[in-house]
């Protein structure tokens, strides 16, 4: 972040939200604060932590007809089973590469679009843009999958028609291992970037207008204002969303991959979730699926904790 470059006001804001040692208010009663949290806490304990007891399935040869109490315990067998599959390394690699590329794209694209939208002065234009970019979010991958097969077709697709107009050989986007991951990342970004854009736009509304006025007085142009006022103003939300997205390091997007992949791109496109799904087709294997889920959760938790801790130690900033 362009932290040092920020004008004094923005700096002060960052400081005030990162540390509050100078603003003790311990005389304020705390009971109401606990009370406010209580209903949500209870609901979470019942409906989120309650089912977590069921994670014991990960250590069972779980058979639905026997239930959780009577299924056989197998220790770490389910984890061992997954690790011993001949494809595990390939699948893990695909998952991480795809998920990581998606994380980057989902971080960068929405920021750019939000900044560009912020430059738009015509309210009707801005509003309709905002609505339109959010629309793909409402269509399922089953629908979008069918549309993408058409658009990306090497023989008849509009994209390849455009490429051949530029003198480029047609590309078999969905059937070529060199391209498949990019198609996944690009189409995922296309479907979901509107969501994060909205969050950033909301963050932009919170920036104190006096900061801009001050910057203009200092002779800053639009670009400098963006760099020194707008971006620092979004900083805390950007950090938050990036850290939370680390929770998805092993989620490459089941619905999307499932609807777009095919045997010819298993090599680069088969991910943990699609493989677990296919294992389950043979025989609903809840034990294995739960073990995989648990593994993913632990990895995510590790990533998030480490970044939380680092932010706290290095910048004295609590991400959430």
């Amino acid at each position, binding site marked *: 972040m362009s932290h040092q470059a920020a004008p004094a006001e923005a700096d002060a804001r960052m400081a005030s939200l990162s540390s509050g040692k100078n603003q003790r208010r311990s005389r304020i009663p705390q009971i109401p604060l606990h009370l406010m949290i209580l209903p949500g806490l209870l609901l979470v304990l019942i409906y989120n932590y309650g089912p977590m007891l069921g994670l014991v399935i990960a250590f069972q040869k779980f058979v639905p007809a026997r*239930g959780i109490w009577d299924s056989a315990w197998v220790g770490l067998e389910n984890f061992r089973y997954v690790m011993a599959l001949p494809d595990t390394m390939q699948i893990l690699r695909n998952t991480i590469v795809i998920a990581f590329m998606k994380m980057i794209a989902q971080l960068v694209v929405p920021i750019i679009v939000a900044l560009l939208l912020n430059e738009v002065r015509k309210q009707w234009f801005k509003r309709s843009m905002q609505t339109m970019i959010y629309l793909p979010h409402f269509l399922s991958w089953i629908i979008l999958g069918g549309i993408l097969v058409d658009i990306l077709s090497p023989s008849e697709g509009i994209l390849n028609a455009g490429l051949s107009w530029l003198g480029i050989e047609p590309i*078999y986007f969905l059937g070529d291992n060199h391209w498949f991951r990019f198609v996944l990342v690009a189409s995922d970004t296309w479907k979901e970037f509107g969501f994060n854009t909205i969050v950033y736009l909301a963050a932009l509304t919170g920036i104190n207008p006096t900061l801009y006025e001050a910057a203009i007085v200092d002779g800053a142009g639009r670009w400098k204002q963006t760099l020194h006022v707008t971006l620092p103003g979004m900083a805390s939300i950007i950090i938050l969303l990036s850290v939370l997205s680390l929770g998805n390091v092993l989620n490459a997007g089941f619905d999307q991959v499932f609807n*777009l992949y*095919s045997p010819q791109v298993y090599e680069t496109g088969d991910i943990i979730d699609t493989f677990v799904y296919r294992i389950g087709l*043979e025989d609903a294997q809840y034990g294995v699926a739960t073990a995989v889920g648990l593994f993913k959760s632990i990895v995510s938790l590790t990533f998030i904790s480490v970044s939380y801790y680092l932010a706290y130690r290095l910048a004295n900033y609590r991400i959430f």
Partner: protein
Amino acid sequence: MLKPKKNVAAASLLCLSLVVSACSNNGDGNQANPSNDKAANSQTTGDEANTSAGNATSEADPQFGKYEPGIELTTVRVIDELKFASGETIDSNQWTRTLEERLGIKVKNNWVVKKDQGQEKMNVTLASGDLPDIFGVNATQLKQLAEAGEIYDLTELYEKYASPLVKEFAEATTNGLAASTFDGKLMAFPAGNATIDNAPILWIRKDWLTKLSLPEPKTMDDVIRIADAFTNQDPDGNGKKDSYGLALNKTLFWTNGGGSFGILEGFMNGYHAYPQSWIKDPGGNLVYGSIQPEMKTALAKLQEMYKNGLIDKEFGVKDEVKEAELASAGRLGMGYGQMWNTLFPLTDSRKNDPAADWQAYPIVSVDSTSASPQTPASSISNYYVVRKDAEHPEALFKMLNLFGELQFDPKTPKEVWQQHSKVDGIEVWQYFPFAVGRPDKNLTIHHNVVAALENKDASALNPEELDAYNNSLAMQEGTGDATNWSYDKVFGKAGSFSVIDKYVTEKLIKSSEYYAAPTATMTDKNATLLKMELETFTKIIMGASVDEFDKFVSDWKKLGGDQITDEVNSWNATK
């Protein structure tokens, strides 16, 4: 649990008393006579006075006797998109009324879910432990329930309570009873089809054959020649080379889940290869069809066809629906599939182009040995099971008997049949929770319709057959629309069932031999093995070296395939 049996003595006495009609009606134990339905209706008032009788009457006539007083039992329902006449619901309709009137059974649906999520909902229900009294499950769930000891041993009940007609149904399913038997005990009632309905069919646009003066296919070479002509000789006459000779979708095989059109079983069978099927080798051992050398020949042929542009270059990313767009747009002339393909997906081809004349042909062979169409080991849509502590386990058979009688007994009056089958286009029969059927019903429809068309006499047809007859008649008289056409191409004189009929009379069909639930190693390894298989086959078709096949075979064996083969054979030895 065995309460009904205690009442046997009392039952025989009571048979003489108030409810004489119900008992005597079913004296022959086979089926009710035509007056039965009316009798049941008029009898209701009498029954109400008789509530103290226990379930004696039900015992007096094990197959059709009514429960007095009535009983209530629970089930769960996995349904299709159902339509209801106004006032009718899944909980109250023609069938629920008939069940109460005839058998004194009130069925309560613990839940109702649409088909796609049925397995999920069933699994959470099984896991949470609140099983209904009687319900339908799939093969895997049946195995789990049987092993967990959660379900009732139906062996004796089946003997005593199932009507001869219903027994006939169960016996006529392919391997149905065997697959329901565990340690010699019958743990479920199998409802489903003979697998002949799933035999591969070769669909070709006859109008294109005629146009290009091509003969009907007799050998695989003919098939390839036709595919070539459909691709290169502009069968649609638009001056563009935009048509394909052979349909293919990315799942490759029907057994692989999903596609019913543009699949390869029939093609492979032409080379005496049986993908994903367990077949007997000359030594009598069971072997996996996908790894036999004949597969390699067939794959090499497909590769050649793909290279020559006879197959859609992009088949690898298209599912059935997407591939069928080509057919609907008049750009595809041939494909292997299932007997119902004119109903789906080819009906749209006809709607777009009334000249499109998809015709079913028998699959053909590469040499002088006739091709054997492969079918799955069994085709059971539902295994009906009873919870082990259900109060009235025998009620399952009474309900099955009733359905069998009202829907399949020739003595059932037509209006009663109709009332319980299809009214104003609404499929009333689907309301019944435990449907059974004559496993070769569709073939019978074909036979009867053809006979009626020849004799110009439809009087012997049941209403369902009459529907099929009218569709074919409309086509004969030249007034048929696309819908009439699509049914005629299934049940009519030259319909897909004439092909299946040929398969059956010439005894060509080759069922997969393994019908039990997945073995332990299948559960563990099949996902990996299937992935390898699909990946290899797809790549070979698209141009990879055919010798990849040999590597696939040795990998398949190494990565668990040999173990699976052992398990399948030891199962075969003990079954």
